[in-house]
């Protein structure tokens, strides 16, 4: 079975632009979470979606938004890009709605560089 797939793998943008990142979860997984990982740090939670509804939001500005589609794939949008948005963006899927006993399965990420 295919794992979590993310596209694109790399992206270069300039300040002020907008970007859309895409994620397809493992087949059968209904929950998708987005994380931002800067160099030398652990992943930081941005959003979680389950059954197309937002279930959680991390401490990120309103420039960050996301949605989940009926096929459980997801998009993360970032507007008005700043230099500080440069990071690896990870998508993770899990079978249920998340919670203590649900492992997260990560994709390889999209590396976003802002010039």
């Amino acid at each position: 079975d295919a794992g979590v797939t993310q596209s694109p793998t790399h992206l270069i943008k300039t300040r002020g632009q907008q970007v859309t990142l895409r994620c397809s979860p493992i087949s059968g997984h209904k929950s998708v979470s987005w994380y931002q990982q800067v160099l030398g740090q652990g992943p930081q939670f941005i959003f979680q979606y389950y059954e197309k509804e937002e279930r959680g939001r991390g401490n990120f500005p309103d420039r960050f938004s996301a949605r989940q589609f009926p096929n459980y794939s997801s998009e993360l949008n970032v507007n008005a890009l700043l230099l500080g948005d440069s990071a690896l963006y990870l998508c993770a899927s899990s079978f249920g709605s998340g919670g203590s006993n649900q492992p997260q399965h990560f994709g390889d990420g999209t590396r976003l560089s802002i010039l």
Partner: protein
Amino acid sequence: QQPVQSPQAVILREGEDAVINCSSSKALYSVHWYRQKHGEAPVFLMILLKGGEQKGHDKISASFNEKKQQSSLYLTASQLSYSGTYFCGTLPGGGNTPLVFGKGTRLSVIA
């Protein structure tokens, strides 16, 4: 509240053992452990739930002491393939609260 991992980095020779600690100032519901190799996605290792259980995955095991609000990851007879950065993720609440990851422990195993 971000969990604190220690040590920040460790270098081992093949066959040596290591312990990585993860502690939180908040009461924990569960602890997740992941390993990330350079340029790759984090890979799930194991989850520990309240109850102090110990789990194992090959020669990697972990314990969870909810009274002390900490978890430890034990790597025995380390192999070159164990190299990577280990992250603990904690769930301060149950249900759908998001994982909060520590800053990671970089483990390097040399021949």
